[in-house]
């Protein structure tokens, strides 16, 4: 399996004059669940479109198992990008019924699992006879989830699959995803804004900021070098010397900051400060919330 990597080299994507993705290098290894996180407009959907050859890159290339992906059916047979659905298409209201949409998917994906699509429809309580244009936001997400899972594609991209879903349905999705993953070892790249819930699903986290990959790292290892530090301001300042601190906040004499250690770097000891672990969501806010990090 180790050759079945999706590799992108020096990808640039422009829409008109605006450059959305800047020289992106990325490797998606088989058999992992990746979380793709970034703020609105960071370039998540564009990146997924380029990786799955639904949109051409302005320059650079994407290969799967050494083959070019663009307009190459042999490679595309292994890749699924289940896009967000809209009630309105370019030709007016989206009058396709859910089951027509699944039939189109069946024609498109060589390993389509019809039984699974049926079962998931039942479990999500989705009516196959309904028109896409009549579905709620949550129901549209269910359709995209079902297409992604039943495609059985080796590499499956999901763009905000849980948008609009209630917490019970989200929980159902996380379980179905893990079920499928543990049974097949397929590769999933999942973008989401509900980071807190999904963080523990991601073996690796890809953080995209302003069209650049800010980091791509094993989630556990990333969190093991992230801490929140708080205490008396002068003591915290002393503590932070030589460390990279984000999201520094002051209230009176008190100061708090999020610290991301370099790999191998250790926290100083012997200071009267409170050291707390940081969740992926908090780290994300610290890294993406403000424009500048301060190295002290």
């Amino acid at each position, binding site marked *: 399996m180790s050759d079945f990597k999706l590799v992108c080299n020096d990808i640039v994507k422009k829409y008109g004059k605006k450059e959305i993705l800047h020289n992106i290098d990325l490797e998606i290894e088989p058999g992992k*669940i990746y979380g793709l996180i970034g703020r609105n407009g960071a370039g998540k959907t564009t990146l997924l479109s380029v990786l799955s050859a639904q949109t051409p890159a302005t320059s650079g290339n994407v290969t799967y198992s050494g083959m070019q992906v663009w307009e190459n059916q042999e490679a595309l047979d292994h890749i699924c990008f289940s896009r967000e659905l809209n009630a309105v298409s370019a030709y007016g209201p989206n009058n396709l019924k859910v089951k027509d949409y699944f039939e189109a998917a069946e024609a498109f994906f060589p390993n389509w699992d019809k039984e699974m699509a049926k079962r998931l429809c039942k479990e999500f309580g989705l009516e196959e006879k309904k028109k896409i244009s009549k579905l709620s936001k949550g129901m549209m997400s269910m359709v995209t989830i079902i297409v992604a899972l039943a495609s059985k594609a080796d590499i499956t991209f999901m763009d905000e699959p849980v948008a609009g879903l209630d917490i019970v349905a989200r929980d159902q999705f996380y379980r179905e995803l*893990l079920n499928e993953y*543990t049974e097949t070892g397929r590769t999933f790249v999942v973008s989401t804004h509900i980071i807190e819930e999904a963080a523990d699903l991601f073996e690796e986290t890809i953080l995209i900021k302003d069209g650049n990959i800010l980091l791509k790292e094993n989630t*556990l290892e990333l*969190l*093991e070098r992230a801490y929140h530090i708080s205490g008396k301001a002068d003591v915290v300042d002393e503590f932070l010397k030589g460390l990279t601190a984000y999201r520094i906040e002051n209230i009176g004499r008190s100061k708090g900051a999020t610290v991301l250690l370099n790999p191998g770097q250790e926290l100083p000891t012997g200071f009267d400060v409170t050291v707390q*672990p940081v969740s992926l969501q908090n780290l994300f806010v610290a890294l993406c919330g403000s424009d500048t990090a301060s190295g002290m």
Partner: protein
Amino acid sequence: MNEYLNQEKSIYLQISEMIETDILRDILLEEEKVPSTNELAKLYSINPATAAKGINLLVDSGILYKKRGIGMFVATGAKAQIRERRKEEFYEHYLQAILQEALHLGISKEELIEMIQQSKN
């Protein structure tokens, strides 16, 4: 095994501690099979690699052992070993925190000892 996970420490550490606590409470018995990493992953909605990291921690310390093709089992003597280790960690994990809080509050050691002696259990 059915505790909720929290954000206070790494998920894999919580997994291994939960299994240890279940062994101490006789929820998991020695020479009994423990849930697989896939089962744990689904139960907690976590990545199987994370569950495996928690399990492997217990294998490394000899609490669990692997039977090829069958799964992970609780080792004989695991309960005594866990109790021994947690006793050693008691000072670091609990007493130090108590002493630090006592210091902030200006509670002397004598007062602390008095409190312990007056407590009911």
